[in-house]
């Protein structure tokens, strides 16, 4: 059975390494600052006790004040999972660091979020539209699109 790691305990361990990165931690998820996202991701992947080598999926939700990115991580060896969230408050030029260099699975998923939600990922090697055609104006999945 996949054990969902408790958000509070993991948040304490992350806060020891990267102070000030964790904004909020609940049982379900850990909310972190978007600047320290890639370092936290690398820490979670490389530490043997966590060993989060599998990125299950990335989602983006449009709560009208902010965008929230949800990263679900899993470890195949220990069979536990964790949810990391980060928020982006700027609607015009939303930008979040990319984690493609850590998990290549993020490649197509980040492109899709850029395409449909308009959040750019800094450091992504090929940030082009993926499901819509290149000249499309607007980002359909936003709540204020239609």
């Amino acid at each position, binding site marked *: *059975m996949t054990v969902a790691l408790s958000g509070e305990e993991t948040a304490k361990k992350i806060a020891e390494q990267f102070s000030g990165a964790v904004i909020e931690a609940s049982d379900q998820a850990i909310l972190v600052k978007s600047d320290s996202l890639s370092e936290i991701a690398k820490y979670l992947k490389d530490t043997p006790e966590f060993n989060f080598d599998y990125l299950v999926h990335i989602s983006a939700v449009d709560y009208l004040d902010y965008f929230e990115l*949800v990263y679900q991580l899993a470890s195949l060896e220990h069979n536990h999972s964790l949810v990391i969230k980060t928020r982006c408050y700027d609607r015009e030029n939303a930008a979040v660091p990319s984690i493609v260099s850590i998990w*290549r699975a993020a*490649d*197509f*998923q980040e492109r899709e979020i850029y395409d449909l939600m308009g959040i750019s990922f800094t450091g992504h090697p090929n940030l082009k539209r993926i*499901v*819509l055609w290149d000249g499309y104006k607007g980002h359909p999945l936003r709540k204020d699109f239609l």
Partner: protein
Amino acid sequence: MTLKTEPFVLNIGPVHPSTHGVFRMRATLDGEVILDIEPIFGYLHRGVEKLAEERTYTGIIPLTDRLDYLASMTNNFAYCLAVERLAGISVPERAEYIRVIIAELQRIASHLIAVGAFLNDCGAFFTPFLYMFREREKIVDLFEMVSGQRLLYNYMRIGGFNEDIPDEFLPALAKFTQQMPGFIEEYEQLLAKNEILQFRAKGVGILPREMAINISASGPVLRASGVKWDIRKADPYSVYDRFEFDIPTGTVGDCYDRYRVRVEEMRQSLRIINQAMEQIPSGPVKSEVPHLIRPPIGEVYARIEAPKGELGFYLVSDNSIAPYRCHVRAPSLINLTALRDMMRGWKVADAILIFGSIDITMGEVDR
């Protein structure tokens, strides 16, 4: 003195007899050798996630059918599982067993098409494809008995099913599970040790183990690369923890291993169906669920082992009759991430073969 060559760009275009659905690959070739390949898709984008925000929870079920249109039942299953976890609805025992039987039947049907299309890409000119379609007809007849439809079933509901299975379903299913192992043996006899298939598929399009985990491959693609990860065993949902079955894995991660893993999975699915048919209880098939479901505020991510890989639904609810956000974790899209690395250095003929062995459905990739 070396020969001076010049690479050229070939567009293996969206409309092609062999790309499964509308998928475009821009290949840079040097003679017959592929130097670079760029996948371009989005031709089948229908905006399912945006449409889901305007429909009721029950009204999204037909939308989920059309994601992986060759395996509709498992799409419905994943979605209903997610909503039930979000709203805290429990499903009666009989409905769980029927769901497992139907999901495994759907897995066999989907793998029949996958293996048939793979062999068709190898060039076996439809003979194995048509033999496998003959078996798929039997499965589709069973599904028609249950839901009235042959391809996009819209059968599962949140909380179970609307109607119980008809009386003639279980005897027909018993007859099918008796005949099917013989048919799988027939395919094995013709194809498993076939020299030409081995020459074409062994060692071609290798996906190494570390890369498979890094790109979050799932399903037969991951298992063929040597990772023993199956959600039915690792994170059991429904009543899968009551059945005994094995997880076939490959060693190398080439096209031949993916083909073998799918054939073995068909055998294991038959095992599960036989056990489920013995254990199935009687009782109601739907729990008391209101017509317009309003789950409490929250979010959930639920996943199942679909035939193509790990199919997951991420639902966010704001206590209204439609979800606030419905995101589909599509296995076919994520399995495609390593396409370029699998294809570089091989020839055009192998490109089609490697693409066919990953087994994608464009409905899922583009949504």
